[in-house]
């Protein structure tokens, strides 16, 4: 009887891609291994996965969230080491950093995909209003003002109701340009910089400028609302994650493009958030470890990487293989890797493992500054206070 591998995942959006493309492709070379993709709604994923792992009923392959959540699983013995698996050498250390122990000695998940932040825009609207793609922040603000004055489009589609949107599409999107990407991120971890430093306050100040250009009622606007506003052609600019490409491809009936986060006036280097987002690990309690390893190994191949990246435009394979992308907007996003420095979201590694988690605080304060209920300084102080309350290097 053929072995069956069960994949735990929160990506229930991808069920069709797995079932129709990835698994059939895998079975071409490995017909004896059955694979079943068993996703859970994202909101329940962590809780249900933990429960199943504790009781020993979880699937063989586990889709890993980046950093601490997975590190915890590894520390508790639920994930195996996968350094030795054939093909792991195809990944850079940066790619692996999201699923490694703090000292970098052990990797426990295969880096599957990253997402890149930036802005998408309605090309037709820009043409109509005669707008140029903004390169710097002042240009960006001018564009926003122009759209607002003209009045037929909402300048930018983003809401603060879902909180994470403000932090992820806002703070983490434009922030790296202020704190110089990896450099600033590492300094924060090392305790050499503080969130109350000027560059962080500037991010918040910049975010605070967004408020007036978000659509009417943005405070109650949820993420799907934002997507819909843009895809229905009612907003000109959309602070994006690359994963939105697929959605807009299927939903928008106008041409759209993307531009990287604008830099502060006078800054020449640009930084993008090229965030490691999805990994794949092996359940230590799996009865089919061999087969699971085979699958993980297959996932490291160029074939698998290309398949994934094209099936899911906006999720970019992290391996070193040269991958041909077909989607034009995805290509644009990936192209920024060549012109700008990559970094990952600064709150994700280490800094969110205590209570309060920096990530959660950033959600909260980003919303605060955009909504105008907090000043930039207050926001920075609040986030810093939360972090230093438990994080030794920051005390």
């Amino acid at each position: 009887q053929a072995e069956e591998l069960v994949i735990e995942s929160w990506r229930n959006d991808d069920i069709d891609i797995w079932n129709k493309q990835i698994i059939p492709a895998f079975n071409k070379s490995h017909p004896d291994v059955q694979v079943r993709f068993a996703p859970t709604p994202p909101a329940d994923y962590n809780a249900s996965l933990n429960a199943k792992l504790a009781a020993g009923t979880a699937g063989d392959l586990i889709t890993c969230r980046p950093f601490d959540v997975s590190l915890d699983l590894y520390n508790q013995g639920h994930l195996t080491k996968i350094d030795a698996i054939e093909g792991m050498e195809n990944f850079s250390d940066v790619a692996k950093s999201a699923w490694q122990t703090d000292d970098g000695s052990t990797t426990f998940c295969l880096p599957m995909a990253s997402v890149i932040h930036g802005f998408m825009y309605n090309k037709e609207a820009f043409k109509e209003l005669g707008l140029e793609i903004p390169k710097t922040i002042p240009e960006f603000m001018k564009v926003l003002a122009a759209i607002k004055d003209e009045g037929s489009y909402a300048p930018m589609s983003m809401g603060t109701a879902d909180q994470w949107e403000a932090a992820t599409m806002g703070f983490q999107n434009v922030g790296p340009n202020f704190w110089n990407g990896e450099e600033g991120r590492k300094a924060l971890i090392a305790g050499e910089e503080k969130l109350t430093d000027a560059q962080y306050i500037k991010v918040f100040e910049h975010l605070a400028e967004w408020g007036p250009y978000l659509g009417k009622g943005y405070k109650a606007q949820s993420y799907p609302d934002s997507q819909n506003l843009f895809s229905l052609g009612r907003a000109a600019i959309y602070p994006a994650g690359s994963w939105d490409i697929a959605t807009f491809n299927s939903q928008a009936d106008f041409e759209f493009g993307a531009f990287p986060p604008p830099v502060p006036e006078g800054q020449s280097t640009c930084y993008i958030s090229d965030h490691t987002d999805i990994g794949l690990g092996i359940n230590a309690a799996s009865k089919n470890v061999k087969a699971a390893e085979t699958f993980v190994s297959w996932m490291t191949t160029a074939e698998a990487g290309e398949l994934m990246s094209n099936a899911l435009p906006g999720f970019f394979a992290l391996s070193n293989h040269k991958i041909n992308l077909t989607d034009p907007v995805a290509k644009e996003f990936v192209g920024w890797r060549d012109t700008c420095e990559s970094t990952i979201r600064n709150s994700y590694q280490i800094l969110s493992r205590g209570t309060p988690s920096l990530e959660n605080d950033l959600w909260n304060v980003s919303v605060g500054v955009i909504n105008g209920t907090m000043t930039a300084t207050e926001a920075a102080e609040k986030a810093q206070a939360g972090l230093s309350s438990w994080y030794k290097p920051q005390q």
Partner: protein
Amino acid sequence: MRTSRRFGPLAVHALLISYTIIALFPILLIIFNSFKSRKAIFKSPLSLPDANTFDLVGFEKVLGSSSFDVYFLNSISVTVMSLAFVLVLGAMAAWALAEYDFPGSDFVALFLAIGIMIPIRLGSVSLLKIIVSLGLINTLTALVLVYTAQGLPLAIFILREFIAQIPNDLKEAARCDGVSEYRIFWSIILPLIRPALATVAVFTMIPVWNDLWFPLILAPGEDTATVTLGIQQFIGQYVTDWNAVLASLTLAIVPILVLYLIFSRQLIRGLTAGAVK
């Protein structure tokens, strides 16, 4: 009574109709939006589906992409079985607590009420371990057991109150007739608390039908998935397929509505009329 024949009924109906509108408007919105294309949902959520906007894509997706018939069957069997256990066992315990004044009865009552005070989700991990050790993982039995345990406290709490209102003379008459306690319970108490049983049934069935959590961890398999678990694939991380969600939820209301209608026929007035002077 007779007042409600002249101006009364109009006022009463006016009040009820206005509340019904409040209750129903959002639901109607759901139902007719489920027949519209995604664009139309957001362009003009208030308008009825017309030739341009009418779109069954949601229903096609739901019915086409998954084994909804199996899910329905699973959901219905789990709901009905749990209900049966909750009602019978709950009524039995409620009767014991309401009728017999044994030492520690207050304690038992309080003990049985704890279940409504803590979310059972809290105990998920232990529960899952127990189910695994019983070899019941991925079975509907596991769900039935958990839902029964989850429904009992509320059922007992409510039924006890209603059982206490049954005229003593009736039980006493039966005792004089030499009827066993079991039969008093079965032939007299149960029929007389029908409205309360129906109410409890409805309250028990709704969370069971709508629950996602326990199917997810106790019985996530293809053969054992419930409707709610089936629907969850349309509620993703970033993209929410509202057409499909609306369609599947519209579909999922139907069986529970039918169950509700069955139970609500038990809400009969004057059940004890004629019993005692």
